[in-house]
């Protein structure tokens, strides 16, 4: 994790901060979701406690703490308690691998604004998210409730089905960038947009960055839809289907155990949005300004190289979070706009629509790369 005690401790703190970002984002997102849904449905939402109802979060947390501890008699205790803890891990590990800003150069140390730099970043993120079904299955089995078990099987079948489309939709992306490294992908997207086809070149106006969405629109759509299903959000929240399954795999959970599941679920949503930003919307780069210009500007205006590097790091971090927030809002907007699918429609969409389209995208990209030396 580092060469001396200073670097190791900074890196450890960084990891904990990344985790706390996810944990702290959740109450805020719950508030945003409740206010946002109220806004969409022309209601008021929680507005009694504190300004704009913001203190509702604290009230909820206190309430969670004083809930009764409860284990159903038919539960398998070990699995029942393990499930919420396991639910936290995949999202945290995946989010820690995402570069949030330009690395900060501090004297002789380089601190990346991410939990850890992994040179096969995409594979790592996919691998870690493929562990998500465990929490669901553990909860479903551990609760000893048949509705929970059914919900868990449904949820995990759904998650794994859409994992196929998700994994396939980024093959074109990998082909264009020729790397699994997330930081390199971000840097590849800062150049001005240009297409070349059979030797003919066309360069867009310089303010238009070479974002992945311009090269892979189809892949982006499939990826985005699949990541909705991966994070079990409406319109794909079949796992919860209140009417037929009570509440899915977390029927028997309450209080803080429920909250941990929530953190896991919102964590998946944050990771999905972050990946969307990273693959298709330029990551932490600021549109219209190249990183070289930005570094130049900071070097002129900030006192000292450390401060300049820190300024650029924070600016890019801010830019990343703005983009991230837009996508998270999109998640909320979609949830409160679209109705839920039926289960057979869900599976049909995953296997018979999105998988073939993702495959088509792969073939098309490969053909274009081969023929046109894109």
């Amino acid at each position: 994790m580092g060469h001396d005690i200073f670097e190791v401790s900074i890196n450890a703190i960084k990891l904990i901060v990344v985790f706390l970002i996810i944990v702290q984002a959740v109450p805020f997102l719950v508030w945003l979701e409740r206010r946002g849904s109220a806004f969409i449905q022309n209601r008021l939402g929680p507005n009694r406690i504190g300004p704009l109802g913001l203190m509702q979060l604290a009230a909820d947390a206190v309430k969670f703490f004083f809930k009764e501890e409860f284990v159903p008699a038919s539960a398998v205790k070990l699995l029942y308690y393990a499930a919420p803890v396991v639910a936290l891990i995949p999202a945290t590990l995946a989010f820690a691998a995402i570069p949030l800003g330009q690395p900060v150069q501090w004297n002789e140390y380089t601190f990346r604004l991410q939990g850890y730099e992994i040179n096969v970043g995409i594979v790592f993120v996919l691998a870690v998210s493929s562990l998500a079904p465990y929490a669901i299955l553990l909860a479903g089995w551990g609760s000893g409730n048949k509705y929970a078990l059914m919900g868990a099987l449904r949820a995990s079948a759904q998650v794994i089905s859409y994992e196929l489309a998700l994994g396939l939709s980024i093959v074109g992306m990998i082909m264009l960038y020729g790397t699994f490294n997330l930081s390199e992908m971000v840097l590849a997207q800062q150049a001005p947009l240009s297409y070349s086809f059979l030797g003919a070149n066309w360069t867009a106006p310089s303010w238009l960055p070479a974002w992945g969405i311009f090269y892979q629109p189809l892949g982006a759509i499939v990826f985005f839809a699949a990541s909705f299903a991966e994070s079990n959000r409406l319109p794909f929240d079949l796992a919860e289907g209140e009417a037929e399954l009570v509440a899915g795999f977390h029927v028997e959970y309450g209080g803080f155990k429920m909250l941990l599941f929530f953190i896991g679920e919102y964590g998946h949503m944050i990771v999905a949005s972050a990946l969307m930003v990273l693959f298709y919307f330029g990551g932490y780069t600021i549109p219209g300004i190249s990183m070289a210009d930005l570094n130049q500007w900071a070097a002129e205006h900030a006192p000292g190289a450390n401060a300049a590097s820190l300024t650029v790091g924070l600016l890019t971090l801010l830019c990343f979070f703005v983009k991230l927030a837009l996508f998270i809002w999109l998640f909320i907007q979609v949830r409160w706009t679209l109705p839920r699918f039926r289960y057979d429609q869900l599976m049909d969409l995953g296997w018979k629509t999105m998988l073939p389209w993702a495959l088509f995208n792969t073939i098309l990209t490969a053909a274009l790369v081969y023929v046109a030396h894109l």
Partner: protein
Amino acid sequence: MSADVFLFWFLAILTLAGGLTTVLVTNPIYSALALAFAMIGVSALFVTLNAYFLAGVQLIVYAGAVTVLFVMVLMMFDLKHEITAFTRGKFTGLVKSGTVALLAGILVGAIAMTSDLFLKISGTPEVALGGGDGTKELGKILFSKYIFGFEALGILLLIVAIGAVALARSKGGTHAKQ
């Protein structure tokens, strides 16, 4: 003890614990979960050997797909009565345990006796990987030297997909229990 060495021993103990639990625990669900644990451990060991891509594939395929399938099927079975976990019968049990012990002895003995040779190898690690993550090298060798194996595996997977579906939907063979 340096960090890498500590990491190896930590992961080795974790993986072994997972593997032994898989074999020794009587409840098959715990067996499957311990197996998942062992596979995550093996994947981390791959990382210590700089096989980053394979570590990811190990997680996706084994921990994320194969073991999830095991867990799902076990949950579907929901066995009503416990079957005796271990083999019964003194003689066969003895023979089987003896075989296992013999194999263990031969393997460990062989490695220990030839470890001088292996230590010579370990003196020159990392020759040809050129500093990258090794994925490109893997791709290059996979799509030139092993290209026919690759296509054959594609056909194997197709056959298995067709066969598994046919098997899973079959109404049972001729030996129906009345």
